[in-house]
């Protein structure tokens, strides 16, 4: 599985939404499925799947799929 496929799969399972709905523009709190509880599940899945440790600011800042990619980029995970 490529990194981008992995990312989409994590978002899709954590938020309980179809993979097709996972676009760069998808934002925190923009749909009922991405609420604070789901955000915690998402963070924990990202940490497990990509084997990283996110800090307080990363977790709070992760307000969209696009930003998630940037934050994972800091951990040397790239999506191109």
């Amino acid at each position, binding site marked *: 599985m490529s990194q981008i496929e992995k990312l989409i799969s994590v978002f899709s399972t954590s938020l309980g939404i179809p993979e097709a709905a996972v676009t760069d523009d998808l934002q925190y709190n923009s749909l009922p499925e991405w609420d604070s509880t789901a955000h*915690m599940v998402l963070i924990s899945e990202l940490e497990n799947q990509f084997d990283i440790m996110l800090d307080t600011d990363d977790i709070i800042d992760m307000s969209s799929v696009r930003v998630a990619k940037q934050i994972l980029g800091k951990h040397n995970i790239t999506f191109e």
Partner: protein
Amino acid sequence: MFFSQLEKHQTNLAVVDQQESFTYSQLAKCCDDFYQHIRPSSSIQQKKLYVLKCGNDVGSLIAYLTVLRAGHSAIIINRHSSKNTLQHLVNTFEPEAIIDGKNWQYPDIDFPATTSGSLKIHTDLAILLSTSGSTGSAKHVALSYENLNQNAVSICQYLPIQIKDKTLCSLPMFYSYGLSVINSHLSKGACCVLTEASPMNREYWQILEDEKINSIAGVPYTYEILLRLRLTNKALPHLRYFTQAGGKLDKDKVLSLANYASEQDKQFFIMYGQTEATARMSYLNPANCLNKPNSIGRAIPGGQFSLVDEKGKKIDSAHNKGELVYSGANVMMGYVSLSRDLAFQKGKQENLLYTGDIGYFDEDGDFYITGRKSRFLKLFGNRVSLDRLEQMMLEQGVNVYACGNDQGLVLAVDKKSSDEVIEEQQLKSKLSKMLAIHHSAIHVMLLDELPINDNGKKDYQSVMQSFKTIGH
């Protein structure tokens, strides 16, 4: 009582929110001004009931205190409650007015047409709080002025609240624990910093540092987030203590927090309570957090615990399980479901509360909860009545058994009960929306037949058994 004696704390800072801050004298003046908006037009002095739509802001606090100071009663609800919920409340309790005090100088006040104006309300009745968040029933807990005051006074005796303290009030005001944080600090003359921000928001952490917050309060879910956001890596030098109630926090999380507290010279208070007891019934001595992380400790000052067996006989020996019974001046007046219940003609119940929780005490007299007699779950701090859920599903033509534990809801569905094909994922996301609970905490099993035990009763145990065997 704390609400009638605000003036006595004079120039102490009383409340802060994003927009404004007031001393106790100013807060009292605001309440007097606010009263002009809600004062009944009739000259006859009659006790009224108001619905208060609340958020965590100064205006909501002013509205609440004003109603108490004037000797009226209030149903305290979430500002964002649905129109249906509100209409239901109006039909059921015939309130004088519905008030949103957010903009306290020009409050939003709605006088419903249906109010008869002849509501009989018991002189002691202060507030009504809902017993269930998501499954929406009319049943409310009725608390007296004395209940609110006694619990606040008792809390001040065991928590190290100081007069110069600032506490962060992030739990909702319409939730008994959130309200008790406010009441106890006003009772002491300390300061409430009100916010709608959760630990998930940058604002929450900003306020912690900027306002030099001395104490925080949270439910298990709050601490799960705080831990995940690495609370334990932060020194927060002003934070002296933090409290947890509203359900059982996992043992390993209790230990993480207890270790953090001991390393950073802070105190961690685990508490136990129910809305039926105004808010709080017990606390664990912070010195015992590390060696008794599963305990709820002992009754708060002025309260008393006992255990009774199935026959109602008192249990006197350690490690024997029974239903936890609490007595104290903070035990509610009773439940109300109709407007005529507000008169409490049968008088107040004795100060005894059968908690519905099953537990035991150890040789030191510290209590532990092991289960629950009645059928409801607490998921992410939301109370879900299993019987009510079954009924709601049945109304939609689906026969289900609802069971589970505080980690998740398990729903066994009778496949043949509906004409339509029931799809697991679809049902999950529907329930997730209906109960406002993350889908990961909802487990659905489609069965050909719902199991019945030898007594002809619903066999929840076998449902839980097969749920565990299919690998959860």
